[in-house]
């Protein structure tokens, strides 16, 4: 079986030292759509996203399969999976300016090597996240919502095939959260990117996602 369009998980599961964390997950996210994974804290939601990115190490094992645009993901090295991972903490690098943080994400593919080309791409990106002229600023001087938008744009500039949002709205207050949700939804539709949202907040899931998967702790049958 192959994945077809979008992001597809097939019987994906995680085990910690051989003990499965949750029942296997199967789902398909078409381009431009969002699926939410909800569940209590500690059930392995965030680890699932890290596993998709290939960043889970230590005592975890991954079983099942995942495809993005029909490419099997789990065999690829992390840096070639092209999944944009957005954390609750925006993780803007403190030694770089806002523009340099965006440039850190901007891929160095053909047509994006020259200084002028890169600067133009950054300016355009800043305008898209409604921060024109903020390029030279220290990221520490931005508000929480502004930082979240920069982090999102940094991921988008790397030209991901899908977005993985790990409690991405949790650090924002209610008003900003609403604004950020619609911002993300618009961008995903516009670019035709599938997204997987991990959250413990039912409101996040309902506002963005058309399908929800609830991760449940596995019943120990011993």
């Amino acid at each position, binding site marked *: 079986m192959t994945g077809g369009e979008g992001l597809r998980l097939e019987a994906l599961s995680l085990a910690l030292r051989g003990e499965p964390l949750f029942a296997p997950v199967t789902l398909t996210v078409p381009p431009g759509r969002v699926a939410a994974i909800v569940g209590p804290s500690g059930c392995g939601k965030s680890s699932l996203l890290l596993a998709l990115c290939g960043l889970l190490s230590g005592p975890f094992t991954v079983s099942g399969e995942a495809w993005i645009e029909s490419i099997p993901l789990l065999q690829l090295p992390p840096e070639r999976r092209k999944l944009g*991972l957005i954390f609750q903490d925006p993780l803007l690098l403190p030694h770089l300016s806002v523009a340099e943080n965006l440039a*850190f994400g901007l891929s160095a593919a053909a047509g994006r090597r020259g200084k002028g080309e890169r600067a133009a791409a950054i300016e355009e990106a800043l305008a898209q996240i409604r921060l024109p002229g903020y390029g030279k600023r220290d990221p520490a001087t931005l508000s929480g919502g502004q930082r979240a938008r920069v982090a999102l744009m940094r991921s988008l500039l790397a030209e991901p095939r899908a977005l993985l949002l790990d409690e991405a709205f949790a650090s924002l207050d209610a008003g900003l959260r609403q604004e950020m949700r619609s911002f993300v939804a618009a961008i995903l539709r516009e670019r035709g990117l599938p997204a997987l949202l991990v959250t413990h907040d039912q409101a996040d899931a309902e506002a963005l996602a058309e399908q929800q998967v609830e991760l449940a702790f596995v019943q120990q049958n011993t």
Partner: protein
Amino acid sequence: MGGAVGAVVVLLLGAPVLLGLVGVVLPAFGYLPALGGESLTLDPWRQLFAEPGLWTAALLGLSSGLLATLLSLCLVIALLAAGPLWLRRGLQALLAPLVAVPHIALAVGLTFLIMPSGWLVRFVSPWPSGWERPPDLAFPQDDLGLSLILGLVAKETPFLLLMALAALPRLDEEWRLAMARSLGYHPVTAWLKTVLPDLLRALRLPLAAVLSYGVANVEMAVILGPNTPPTLAILILDWFRDPDLAQRFLGSAAALLQLGIVLFALALTWGLALGLGRLARRLAADGRRGQGRLLLPAGLWLALPPLLALTLLALLVLFVWSFAARWRFPDLLPVWSLETWQRQGESVALLTGQSLALALCSTAIALLLAFALLESRRPARQRAAEPWLLPVLALPLLVPQIAFLFGAAVAALQSGIAAPWFFVLWGHLLFVLPYVYLTLAGPHRGLDRRYHQQAISLGKGPWRVFFTVTLPLLRAPLLTAAAVGLAVSFALYLPTVLLGGGRVVTLASEAVALSGGGDRRLLAVTALLQALVPLLAIALAIRLGRKRRFLP
């Protein structure tokens, strides 16, 4: 009250350092009434610049210090950026003991390893090297200072690595790496672009201390450094100790030159770091993901295990030599005997006692002062005192010892107080306090304030709170700080020799004296004890610090 404690520290540490510097600056320009120099003149400088080999000596100190610091830093960066995680975890437990090994003991042990009749040559002789007698090599103490660089790198790399590992948890290393790798960055590139710039900033003070020590140290350069000429620091010490007191004008001028060279080295690296920082920002913004081309320089971490093994072997060879009766080349092991320990037991016991007394007293005073400083700044003016306190505390670590200790020694002599032991104690405190304070400051700042608020709201007075809440919470760092203080004191050489005027003898000063060609067995016993006591203290601190009444 915070101001009062701070003032005491400044008077105790900062003022004597500056006084010591003045005591070098004036004679450097011919002014030292006690020796008949009553007018300002440039004669000492003319004499200095006419010294044969002066520039070679100056360049040797500068190059060995710079190269060793750079090499140690590169090793640390390579391990953190590209080394396997198991090695990093494995080293973590080994680092604190390695850092506690004094410079002198390490230098002596390394000499026993790398000299032509040393263990390393014996390992390959007579087969497969074919050497029936020690090869004719000018090593260690080679003219280029290579063995000195080796010693400095072996000594400073574990220190820098320990400092780096302590700083990393505050830098969100794991998350930054996850972020960068999800953006498509190769792991090594990801580390270099996201973590390194902030890590370098956190390592500024340790790096500056390592550099200053490397350029101007005496004890490692005496044992491992070249002889013809030696490094500048050694020339200075010789001039200061010359029976012809007129040489002191020359020594003072040279000490001032040494200070200038250290400042130059610091400025050079500072400029280099600034440039690198700018380059790092440009590189971070160029978007290149680096698919493995950096792997070659990053593979430098492979040099770390052999380097650390060399340090451990150096300790082992001290142990073997101390129990040797005769040790003919190329035998791998000596004819064993307890003779050295039995014959010299009493005298080395006295030396150990002297070292211990100084270490315990200076550490106790340092702990008292450190706690007084930390507690007096809580809670209101927590940040206010930091900006000036750190530079004062760091002063003795950044200004080369040889540049201010001599001036301080002259001042001590002229004070007419005949208490060499107390002057030496003060000299030790100068170096013990900064390390003790820095070891305690982080954990103290990290204390959860609510425990104190809770205790005060339960009606406990400030002293009760200190003894029943603060101290027990800080048990592990307190033990570590005490062990660190003891290790620092055990390693000190120049303060003991210069401030004690030859009347205070410790394991460190005796080991340096014996390294000039004394009995190798006795040298091994002395150096071994100098290393063993701090090692035991660190091991004990780790052991006791880990023991908890209730496991979480």
